[in-house]
């Protein structure tokens, strides 16, 4: 559970400070006064001061995490998640900033809708940045008022959930967004190639008799989007990439073009299609978890820096949405609370990635994609701090879920690395 304290002066003592912006790592102290970083150094004396001292020995002290891909379901499906419950799920995972997708009901496709999200989240304990829809009604036909939406607080644009099928429309959207200097984030899946597939097309899908979703459905559209973005010099962000083919395409295009960015989700790094063997609907997700080689390519891609960041694609669903047949179950899983323990286990503990590098993928890199402030440990900066134990082994259970929904394939799994404390929006949280 989560405990909140509002406190004026907090001293985080003797932690291992990893600043992913300056790339400095040292053992030291951070002082937060009135919600701002007021001092950071090897040792800050506390004798005779009215500081609340938090012992961070053995813990890593770093920037608050930033998730650029989450679904908070408000407005419309407040039974699954609200902006408020989503905020606490985020805090549980060490996230102080979250960008929320537009596929709510109604869809976030006008400046008025953006304004609603911004004003509704202003008092919440994390920063919520709405991503606006690219097309009105997510229909992929008419552009939304992106200029006015940006003025009202839209941070980027995405029809996530509905791949943009029409190449001419995608071209116009990428062109229009050039005026805003923000990325178009496309959910790349060719609907016809996807062919109603419910899991990765593989031996497992054949054996289970489930309809397969070929990795080509993603790769074909990724290739189209990369070509368009490159020729237009537009910002493109590839959402939740899942296949080796996509990683290979990124290698080819990213070298020449810094405007192209991408993300990978924890579940695509953690699971493979074979894990679906008992028709476990908590693993039903779009795009699907893929094969061994795809997972391996994604791990290599995030390690090498080819993939910019980790994003949860936190997608809450009710029990009844998932307690059904695999065909009928909804796509998606929650991901905020389990994120760090999962990716730290897979990437750092099992695949030799450095912890520093992993932290970049959760902090400075996603913020860079979204043009957010990245130098969070500079003096005077609004404090966003996440403190975790990088080595704690724990089993993820319902008790750790702060989301309104509990559709997670990580339930019962052992994770490594656990968030302990967070400072966000002038509040101190103990997880």
């Amino acid at each position: 559970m989560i405990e909140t304290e509002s406190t004026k002066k907090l001293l985080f003592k003797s932690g291992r400070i990893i600043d992913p912006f300056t790339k400095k790592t040292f053992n030291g102290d951070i002082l937060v006064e009135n919600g701002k970083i007021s001092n950071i150094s090897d040792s800050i004396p506390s004798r005779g001061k009215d500081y609340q001292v938090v012992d961070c020995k053995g813990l890593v002290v770093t920037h608050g995490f930033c998730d650029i891909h989450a679904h908070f379901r408000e407005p419309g499906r407040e039974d699954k998640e609200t902006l408020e419950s989503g905020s606490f799920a985020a805090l549980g995972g060490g996230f102080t900033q979250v960008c929320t997708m537009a596929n709510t009901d109604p869809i976030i496709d006008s400046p008025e809708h953006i304004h609603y999200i911004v004003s509704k989240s202003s008092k919440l304990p994390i920063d919520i940045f709405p991503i606006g829809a690219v097309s009105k009604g997510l229909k992929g036909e008419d552009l939304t008022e992106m200029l006015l939406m940006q003025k009202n607080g839209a941070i980027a644009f995405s029809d996530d959930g509905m791949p943009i099928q029409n190449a001419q429309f995608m071209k116009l959207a990428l062109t229009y967004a050039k005026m805003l200097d923000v990325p178009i984030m496309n959910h790349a899946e060719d609907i016809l190639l996807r062919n109603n597939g419910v899991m990765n097309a593989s031996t497992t899908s054949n054996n289970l008799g489930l309809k397969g979703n070929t990795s080509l459905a993603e790769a074909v559209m990724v290739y189209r989007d990369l070509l368009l973005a490159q020729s237009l010099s537009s910002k493109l962000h590839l959402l939740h990439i899942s296949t080796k083919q996509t990683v290979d395409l990124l290698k080819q295009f990213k070298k020449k073009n810094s405007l192209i960015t991408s993300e990978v989700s924890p579940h695509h790094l953690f699971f493979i299609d074979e894990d679906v063997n008992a028709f476990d609907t908590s693993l039903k997700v779009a795009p699907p978890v893929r094969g061994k080689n795809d997972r391996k390519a994604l791990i290599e891609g995030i390690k090498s820096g080819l993939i910019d960041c980790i994003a949860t694609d936190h997608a809450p669903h009710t029990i009844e949405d998932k307690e059904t047949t695999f065909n009928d179950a909804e796509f998606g899983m929650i991901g905020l609370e389990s994120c760090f323990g999962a990716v730290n286990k897979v990437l750092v503990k099992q695949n030799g990635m450095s912890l520093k590098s992993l932290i970049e993928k959760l902090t400075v890199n996603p913020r860079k994609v979204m043009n957010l402030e990245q130098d969070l440990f500079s003096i005077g900066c609004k404090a966003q701090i996440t403190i975790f134990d990088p080595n704690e082994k724990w089993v993820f259970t319902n008790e750790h879920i702060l989301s309104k929904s509990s559709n997670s394939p990580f339930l019962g799994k052992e994770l490594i690395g656990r968030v302990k404390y967070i400072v966000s929006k002038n509040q101190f949280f103990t997880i």
Partner: protein
Amino acid sequence: MLKSKHLIGLEHFPVSDLNKIIDTSFKFKEILQTESRKAILLQGKTVVNMFFENSTRTKISFSLAEKRLGADSINFSASTSSVKKGETLKDTVQNIESMKIDGAVIRHGHPGSALKLTEYIDGAVINAGDGSHEHPTQAILDMVTIKEKFGKIKGLKVGIVGDILNSRVARSDIFALKKLGAEVVVCGPSTLLPNDAKKLGINITYNLDEVLNWCDAVIALRIQLERMHLGRIPSKREYHSEFGLTFERISKLKKDIVIMHPGPMNRGVEIDSKVADSDNAVILDQVLNGVASRMSILYLLLGEGDMEI
């Protein structure tokens, strides 16, 4: 007289011809302001006005120019002609030509139609707008209006705002302004701007306030509302807010700028009524200058060289 036999477009039009037309336009403007408003310089000449596309201003302007010059003019519009019966452009035109005409004014929805016409007839062809290609007489009347206001064109800073990509007016204006030594910046939503600005020798920006603070004159183009449904602009509201010549924007400027619009205007979209009707707007001067410019063009292309104005 002119080096050119026709006026098809300004891209390849000799600058000497362009200057001659502009200068002569001022003489016709003087005549238009006399009591008789006439200069019978094209008596016995026959001009056919062929409008395959709708037009109010341009059609009336040409008819009036022909009448003021004493030419015989015939009007032809596609909606009431054999074009409806399936006759080709070539046959339509050659039939008209065989009736002995000296000049043809053509507006057509397809780019290149005016040039095509020169292959079929001997008389002078004047392009009154061919698709998204050129609208040279509009650009000439714009040049006349600018020169009338500033006494020169060279060195002036002119902004053009709107659908630059699909506008024949923008294209002809850019060619004319560049030929005459003006600096040009175009502004509009990125989906309606050309990607070959460098080749045209112009600059591009998405920031209207920047253009307005920089320019001496601004030409607002009509935004075709059907573009909205082709995914090029999201709404009238967003267009008006970001690319409209709003009263608020114009009144914030530190210096006066000349406001132009080729018409027909979408008041409240690309231009506010208060701006269109303000003292800085020369939109109605453009209309009168249109008649003078077209008289000048008709006279210089169809008239005899020794006629004194």
